[in-house]
């Protein structure tokens, strides 16, 4: 019997730092119609009691299968094609992350569940789904190494496997429900493509602040939460250090007013006689001819992040002297033009 308390306790016990993930699961329902275990858009964990009885030996195994399902959501796997090879690739990526990535490796006892669940399989594709497979003589040795060194993304692996595996290749031992709602064996109301990630994501964000986004970054960077937070701090510090110019003179003094500061104007209004005026220096980089030159990649893959970049440019616009956009050609532009959304791009990235 798998209860909500059991599920949350398994997450709490194995990874206290990630216990907020348990919020993604709202209830548990036994359903003998599904082959293994799955999660639906309401966060209901559906499980086959026979599968739990046969394969879940301890809290490590339970934690592993729960996290496997949640990772499909975190990795946005619902947006990929629902074909056999894609499903194998997506499961392999998750199993590798849970077995090898920092933090998760210890919690899953280095993928103990996957080693046991796929132990009787010696051939492709099932050997890709467990850590510790002996692949020395296999043509998939390099692919396997890339997966279990956590260097491949789901997108990369789907493409690799689609070009290397036979088209009819499939695994009948995948975790979860990969068949989709059109399959008569699929339980109703399961895997509503596209809405699961959005709804679970908003649920986690609502209850856990920015933890959902933080977790995604942790997984993408293969760092622990502490390392990820430190990296974020270090990156911000690097940008501040780079853009800060300690040698810029903010004021200069003169016996005659040239560009009086606000302090001088207040003193003057108060009836004070000013002998030496504190003049404000125009620190904008444009007027000095110095400052920072910005090269902005506007090739096709970058259009979605341009709003964030424009926000950063706006923050540092005083330090920016020149700005170039480049894709297959490099073009000088100015900030005002960029802020209007006028971006010249030829979409590629080959300027040789």
């Amino acid at each position: 019997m798998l209860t909500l308390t059991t599920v949350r306790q398994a997450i709490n016990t194995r990874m206290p730092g990630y216990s907020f993930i348990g919020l993604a699961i709202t209830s548990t329902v036994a359903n003998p119609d599904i082959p293994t275990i799955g999660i639906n858009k309401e966060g209901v964990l559906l499980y086959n009691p026979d599968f739990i009885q046969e394969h879940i030996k301890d809290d490590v195994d339970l934690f592993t299968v729960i996290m496997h399902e949640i990772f499909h959501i975190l990795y946005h796997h619902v947006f990929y094609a629902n074909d056999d090879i894609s499903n194998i690739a997506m499961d392999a990526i998750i199993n590798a992350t849970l077995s090898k990535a920092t933090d998760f490796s210890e919690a899953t006892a280095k993928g103990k569940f996957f080693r046991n669940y796929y132990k009787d399989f010696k051939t492709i594709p099932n050997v890709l789904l467990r850590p510790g497979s002996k692949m020395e003589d296999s043509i998939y040795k390099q692919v396997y190494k890339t997966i279990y060194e956590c260097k491949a993304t789901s997108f990369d692996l789907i493409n690799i496997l689609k070009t290397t595996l036979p088209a009819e290749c499939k695994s009948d031992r995948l975790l979860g429900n990969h068949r989709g709602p059109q399959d008569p064996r699929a339980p109703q109301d399961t895997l509503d493509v596209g809405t699961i990630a959005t709804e679970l994501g908003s649920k986690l964000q609502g209850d856990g602040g920015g933890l959902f986004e933080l977790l995604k970054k942790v997984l993408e960077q293969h760092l622990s939460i502490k390392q990820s937070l430190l990296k974020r701090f270090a990156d911000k510090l690097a940008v501040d250090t780079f853009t800060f110019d300690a040698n810029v003179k903010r004021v200069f003094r003169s016996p005659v007013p040239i560009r009086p500061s606000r302090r001088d104007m207040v003193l003057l209004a108060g009836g004070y006689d000013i002998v030496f005026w504190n003049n404000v220096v125009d620190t904008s980089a444009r007027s000095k001819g110095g400052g920072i030159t910005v090269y902005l990649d506007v090739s096709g893959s970058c259009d979605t992040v341009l709003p964030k970049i424009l926000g950063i440019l706006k923050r540092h616009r005083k330090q920016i002297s020149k700005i170039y956009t480049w894709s297959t050609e490099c073009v000088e532009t100015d900030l005002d033009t960029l802020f209007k959304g006028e971006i010249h791009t030829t979409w590629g990235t080959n300027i040789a």
Partner: protein
Amino acid sequence: MKKAIIFTDGYFGGVYGSENLETVKKVDLLTILFDLSDHIEDTTYKENSEIVFLDNIVE
């Protein structure tokens, strides 16, 4: 030393070639990567540029 910020997804392709190896040593470089995958493989470039991730510097 001149300062330059490069915003990119890391796929320099033909933009950054061997002819630029000396240039990067003479410029104070900050590279801001769009995504969390570090696609820059050239060690000379990596040694001469501070590399940060865009997502880490925006709120």
